[in-house]
């Protein structure tokens, strides 16, 4: 039993953090909001240089062959930086899905795409049944779309996109009009359902990991502001009302951290508790981040309510991640199904462990 990350994992996290702190500034994010695609091919190439899209690509396909336990800390950093690139769809969901398709006897698609993903030369968008929208469809070189119990690999030319306007300028979502045909079908039946479920859980886990970073960053911003802003002749951070708000936010963020890390482990190892563990992670981390957003806004006061202050960039990330890959209510209901509806006692970490 060992709940620590390895030095290598922490080093990778630090590398990504250093890179994003230098390059993915609030100003950078704002600039992207004002571009047509909201995405930067140049930035994606830099992310590929430090290996982000290659993380879950097998080594034999030119990737780093890591798993979600390595990825989770990286994703946390992308949340912290409010990164606006398709890291969830391409790096966290599409890469392992293509790997699994290859394992199940469809190597062609993986051969074609995995290497390019690892190099940063291809972006893949992913559609799933829990949301009517597909993120990043406008910049995708390939779309992996769910339809009933099937997965289809669809070329961008054969879909019609309608851009929806998200409150989060980093979120580019589309209604996708397409017709499933036999040639695009890459999985169906039991396999299709399994891969859909695994992909959805990977996406939800990725959102949860980003929310950790978003929540932590919101608290840090509010702490900094409260330490500098004075009213009544003192820094507002000396007021108990301010202190206690941020302390409560910190409790929530810290108590979602281990839940997210455990879910990463469950996904990486395909544990039977994977879906429930992911739902707990998504729900808990999202509640923490949206709570932190609300408290941070109240700490900032009027200035936090303005477009020119950066706070809203992270607030809106917290809100949009909360809705992506299953809302909180949806995930709570999934946990309830396993915990409350089951005839058997739920699995409690440690407590339910069998003896040897």
């Amino acid at each position, binding site marked *: 039993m060992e709940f620590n990350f390895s030095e290598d994992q922490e080093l990778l996290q630090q590398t990504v953090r250093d890179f994003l702190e230098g390059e993915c500034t609030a100003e950078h994010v704002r600039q992207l909001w004002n571009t047509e695609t909201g995405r930067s091919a140049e930035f994606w190439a830099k992310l590929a240089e430090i290996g982000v899209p290659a993380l879950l690509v097998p080594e034999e396909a030119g990737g780093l062959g890591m798993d979600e336990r390595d990825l989770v800390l990286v994703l946390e950093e992308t949340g912290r930086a409010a990164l606006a690139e398709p890291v969830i769809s391409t790096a966290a969901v599409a890469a392992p899905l293509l790997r699994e398709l290859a394992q199940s006897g469809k190597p062609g698609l993986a051969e074609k795409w995995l290497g390019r993903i690892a190099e940063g030369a291809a972006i893949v968008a992913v559609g799933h049944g829990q949301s*009517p*929208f597909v993120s990043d469809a406008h910049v995708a070189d390939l779309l992996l779309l769910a339809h009933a119990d099937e997965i289809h690999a669809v070329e961008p030319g054969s879909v019609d996109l*309608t851009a*929806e306007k998200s409150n989060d300028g980093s979120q580019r979502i589309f209604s996708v009009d397409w017709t499933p045909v036999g040639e695009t079908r890459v999985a169906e039946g039991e396999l299709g359902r399994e891969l859909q479920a695994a992909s959805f859980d990977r996406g939800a886990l990725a959102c949860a990991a980003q929310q950790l970073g978003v929540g932590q960053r919101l608290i840090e911003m509010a702490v900094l502001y409260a330490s500098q802003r004075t009213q009544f*002749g003192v820094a507002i951070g000396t007021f108990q009302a301010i202190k206690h708000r941020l302390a409560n936010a910190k409790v929530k963020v810290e108590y979602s951290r281990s839940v997210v890390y455990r879910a990463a482990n469950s996904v990486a190892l395909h544990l039977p508790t994977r879906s429930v563990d992911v739902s707990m992670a998504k729900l808990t981390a999202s509640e923490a981040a949206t709570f932190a957003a609300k408290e941070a806004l*109240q700490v900032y006061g*009027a200035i936090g309510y*303005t477009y020119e202050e950066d706070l809203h960039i992270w607030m809106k990330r917290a809100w949009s991640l909360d809705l992506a890959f299953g809302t909180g209510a*949806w995930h709570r209901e999934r946990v309830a199904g396993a915990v409350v509806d089951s005839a058997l006692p739920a699995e409690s970490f440690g407590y339910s462990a069998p003896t040897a």
Partner: protein
Amino acid sequence: MDLTYTLEQQAFRKEARAWLEANVPTEPLPSFDTKEGFDAHCDWEKKLNEGGWAMVPWPVEYGGRGADLLEWLIFEEEYYRAGAPGRVNQNGIFLLGPTIMEYGTPEQRARFLPKMASSEEVWAQGWSEPNAGSDMANIQATAIREGNEYVINGQKTWASRGAYAHWLFGMFRTDPDSKRHHGLTFILAPMDAPGVTVRPIEKISGKPAFAEVFFDDARVPAENRLGEEGQGWSVAMATAGFERGLMLRSPARFQNTARKLVDLYRKTLQSGAAIDPALRGRVTQCWMAAEAYTLNTYQTVSKLLAGGKIGAEASLNKIFWSELDIEMHETALALLGERAELKPGSPAAQGVGDWLDGYIFALAGPIYAGTNEIQRNIIAERILGLPRK
């Protein structure tokens, strides 16, 4: 206790309803945070004024209807019920108007009130400065008397309607050596005076909602002073009392939102979408809270009409409506699921995006007009009598 309306009150309601049904625009006006919308709202105010419904609670001599507070409540109920436009001239009707009636000279009343009533002149608030937010007494903008004028320097911020308003009211330090709430004077300043610069501030939705107003040796005549020199704090406190109190947040506003929320719940249920079972109770609770707000307002109004006073109780009011407004919108967004993040114009939004807009508006509630932290301090110290220090 008699919770029925008198015949006169019923007749008043009938008259208001008939006029509104005949005159309220059939299509929503564009947001008054745009120039186009600002003008359209001014036109609507003009129409209201011509119909005699712009300044309902003002005395007849100033162009009002001389309505008492209960009639005002009835008018507001009808106004929201009719889906009539937001009031671009709110600062004038509810804040500055009553203040001028109380503190203004006869000349000031004659000069300012009629054009306020017709919305020919729309007013911006100039309460806050960058370092005078919650700490309202920390004002640094100065107005130095030179002959028959005040020379104004400094900066006001969060001026609501500031982007397009014609006039601004606020406190300025006329005694540069004074501290805190001493030495302040309440001044009415035209926004087109030389030396006045307006910079709109966008709220997080990206829409302009406030403005910063910079004064650089701007000169206003001494007769634009409201009340005595150095008495600005008392004048402002009276005005702020109007704002914190019931005048700006009529119960009908929240009842209207609560009813829309109930409607959204029913429609979502009918659509067959999965709904978090907890939302049934939350929707009900929101509806009840809007009723509680209404009943409390009616009771307060009855007390005022019987000669009572409202003081720090306004702080209870502020906390209640601002938290309710957020809760109603969060509940609505929870009902919308994935569509909750769509902006109003988004193809898949089909009208639901107004809830997001309303949520962002509601989020300002606990911040403006005195943060809820300040209100809690006031309740604790002035109503409950807890020690200050």
